[in-house]
């Protein structure tokens, strides 16, 4: 068991400074071609190459100390990671952003809307300023209370995430997932009020220090339940747990060192389906449904979970997947990342519009994703752009298939 005294490592201590990270940049500009923000504004200031140049400009004295405009250039970014992925010189733009945002926050240059978001999380333990005990309101509409409700010990913990807990339009994701768990006899627990915000919004605002309480609390809460696995339907919670929790807790690996396996729901569902644990109909019994799949940045490119959702879709009867022009680790951001919804919503909306148009170009009538934030953002974009593409989570599609199998059994 971990104690409260677990030393918290400084995430910056072992690697290079932001300025050193910029040294490999040859200003070729390839990052502009994949940067969703730049592709909308077509203003170089919004590009990864410019951010690299800005860091250098401070070091070289071309610019005086950072000001609000400077900070704005670093916070107007969706953190989709496409620039880092595509960079042929291997510049860790993501790391440059992380370090610079940290410095800016320390210098009091965190934009007000973002500082308010962090203060809200610190006070309420969630992003939406509602009482944290209300995290499970979404269970009220279910046909039966989920078996994971109020369970104190379980093999699996389901970490719902703030978006699905507090934004009614996203309730259907956890609702679908717990119904699948219940029908397959998964031994799982819901955390309810003892689930706190994972801390990711604070980390990306450059306030990692403030996230540490949340991180410690969450890990202790799941450890107290004796869980072996923690499953996430939120791609961002999943990414933060798997990539930053170990460093913040001073361990190498959550599974090896703490005995907790971190899994995204799509990985869990893919395993269930391939083990034959879900009763489905044969392909011939259902009508074809053409879908496209949007890789969430935090899950795909940044999290490495690319095939699991596709493995799930491949198992579902009648479901035919057509890929968008930019897919897998080259996926285009949904526009919902980087806390821009709080800071610069117009950037995210423009990006979301482009992505939903890409989806429509495939001819698919349904866009499937595996992240509540992507789904919210893209569903809003479909409405705004008047594009007739429905947006659903992988879990919802699995539940549909189970329902169909069940109703045909009853026939």
């Amino acid at each position, binding site marked *: 068991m971990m104690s409260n005294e677990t030393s918290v490592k400084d995430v910056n201590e072992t690697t290079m400074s932001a300025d050193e990270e910029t040294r490999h940049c*040859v200003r070729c500009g390839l990052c502009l071609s994949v940067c969703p923000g730049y592709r909308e504004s077509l203003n170089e200031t919004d590009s990864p190459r410019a951010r690299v140049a800005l860091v250098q400009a401070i070091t070289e004295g071309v610019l005086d100390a950072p000001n609000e405009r400077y900070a704005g250039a670093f916070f107007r970014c969706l953190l989709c990671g496409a620039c880092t992925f595509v960079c042929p010189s291997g510049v860790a733009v993501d790391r440059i952003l992380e370090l610079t945002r940290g410095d800016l926050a320390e210098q009091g240059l965190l934009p007000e809307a973002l500082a308010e978001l962090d203060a809200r999380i610190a006070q309420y333990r969630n992003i939406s300023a509602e009482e944290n005990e209300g995290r499970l309101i979404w269970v009220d509409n279910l046909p039966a209370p989920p078996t994971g409700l109020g369970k104190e010990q379980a093999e699996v913990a389901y970490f719902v995430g703030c978006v699905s807990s507090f934004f009614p339009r996203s309730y259907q994701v956890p609702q679908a997932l717990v119904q699948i768990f219940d029908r397959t006899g998964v031994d799982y627990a819901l955390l309810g009020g003892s689930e706190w915000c994972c801390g990711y919004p604070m980390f990306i605002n450059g306030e990692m220090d403030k996230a540490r309480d949340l991180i410690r609390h969450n890990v202790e809460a799941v450890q107290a339940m004796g869980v072996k696995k923690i499953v996430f339907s939120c791609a961002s919670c999943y990414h933060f747990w798997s990539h930053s929790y170990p460093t913040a807790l001073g361990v190498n690996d959550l599974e090896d060192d703490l005995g907790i396996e971190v899994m995204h729901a799509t990985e869990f569902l893919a395993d269930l389906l391939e083990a034959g644990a879900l009763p489905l109909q044969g392909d011939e019994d259902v009508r074809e449904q053409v879908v496209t799949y949007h890789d969430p940045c935090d899950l795909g490119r940044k999290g490495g979970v690319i095939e699991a959702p596709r493995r799930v879709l491949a198992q579902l009867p009648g479901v035919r997947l057509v890929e968008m022009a930019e897919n897998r680790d080259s996926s285009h951001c949904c526009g919902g990342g980087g806390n821009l919804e709080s800071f610069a919503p117009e950037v995210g909306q423009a990006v979301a519009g482009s992505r939903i148009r890409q989806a429509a170009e495939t001819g698919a009538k349904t866009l499937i994703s595996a992240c509540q934030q992507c789904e919210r953002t893209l569903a809003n974009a479909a409405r705004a752009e008047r594009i007739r593409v429905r947006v659903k989570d992988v879990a919802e599609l699995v539940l549909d298939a189970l329902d169909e199998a069940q109703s045909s059994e009853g026939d």
Partner: protein
Amino acid sequence: MEKIITQLQETLGTEKVLTAPVDLVAYSFDGTFEQQLPDVVVLSESTADVVAVVEIAAREGVPIVPRGMSSGLAGGSIPMPGSIVLSLTRMNHILEIDEENMTATVEAGVIAVDLEAAAAKRGLFYPPDPSSNKQSTIGGNIACNAGGPRCLKYGVTGDYVMGLKVVLADGRVLETGGKPIKNVVGYDLTSLFIGSEGTLGIITEALLRLLVQPGFVHTSRAEFLSLEDASRTVNAILRAGVVPATLELMDETAIACIEEAMQLGLPLDVEAMLIIETDGSDEAAVEREIETVARVCRENGARKVSVAQDEAERARLWRARRSVSPSLARRAPNKLGEDITVPRSAIPEAIRRIKAIGTRYGLPIVVFGHAGDGNLHPNVLFDRRDPEQWAKVEPIVGEIFQTALDLGGTLSGEHGVGVFKLPYVEHALGATSLDVQRRIKQALDPLNILNPGKVLPDM
């Protein structure tokens, strides 16, 4: 300058006019290590915007630096103090694809690869493919007459330009060329602006020729233990009667840099690699050609020749080739990529001499490029903060240029002159050509406000 900024804001609206230091930094550089802050940046959205900026600049005698995505490698879009950077990236509309006449009319800010994709959707083909085709604009490609791997068979950007819309230095809008393929009325003004690097006028629209998609492509990779064998093979392939779409050469350092950055499984024990692609509409012919290529490679000492089995493998090979230049950053903080061309027969000798220059000065020079058309990219790797290394760069470059000229070649095949090659222009052109070119510049830009100090050295 304040007066000019006010005029720009009043005419164009404040949203298109950037003056914050943060914005000026973002528009201060290109694909090289040079940088200089402009005084103001304008994000133009139409030819009318460009006219407005030019009229103000002409009235006030202020220099304008036209800018696409600024991926250039010669310093051509680096601003000068007191200048206006005129960005054309927001003019990114494909205005028409005429399937019958096989032409495209595009705004200057269209990204090259986007045009290629739009044409491909209709079974048409826009061949120019500079390595920066994802991050460079058609306007910039025309202004530098950009080449690319496919030049060997398909020619350079300029070969596809049928007409232009250009804003002149006095604010008038000139239209050149048109859809008729043959047109000999008056001077060929279209060609005058191709490769003019924004010094004669600002290109805002282009009418481009398209071909039909080739349909079948084969890509192969040949590994050579000796760089000489590889460069000899280039000529042997062409002598065998095959015109590959591309014939690209990378030396061992280039291969090692890509491998270090991207881990693609490239061989690290060879001196050179050729990437050769044949294409066409007749599947059997394309296949026959790649077989001939493979045979010639083996006859000339290739250790191994492999043909890409699928599109993914082909894409991987090209991703490697396109990454050569940026991946060099893994080896040294700075690089200066040159762009000499020599007659094809002189390639082995050129490479030998360039490598010798590097050895003599003790700085690595990586060589890769479009060997099929004699266009080599020797890249000098160095650390600019080390004064000893920095002092060697200029003499090295001078010797590389001299080598090219001695072998009957020239300074630049596709990057342009920009600012970096200025000291060598007179030597390359000769006095008469330089004088004629200066008179052209003076006739079109008497106030010297269009990208001054680029392409032609000051008197």
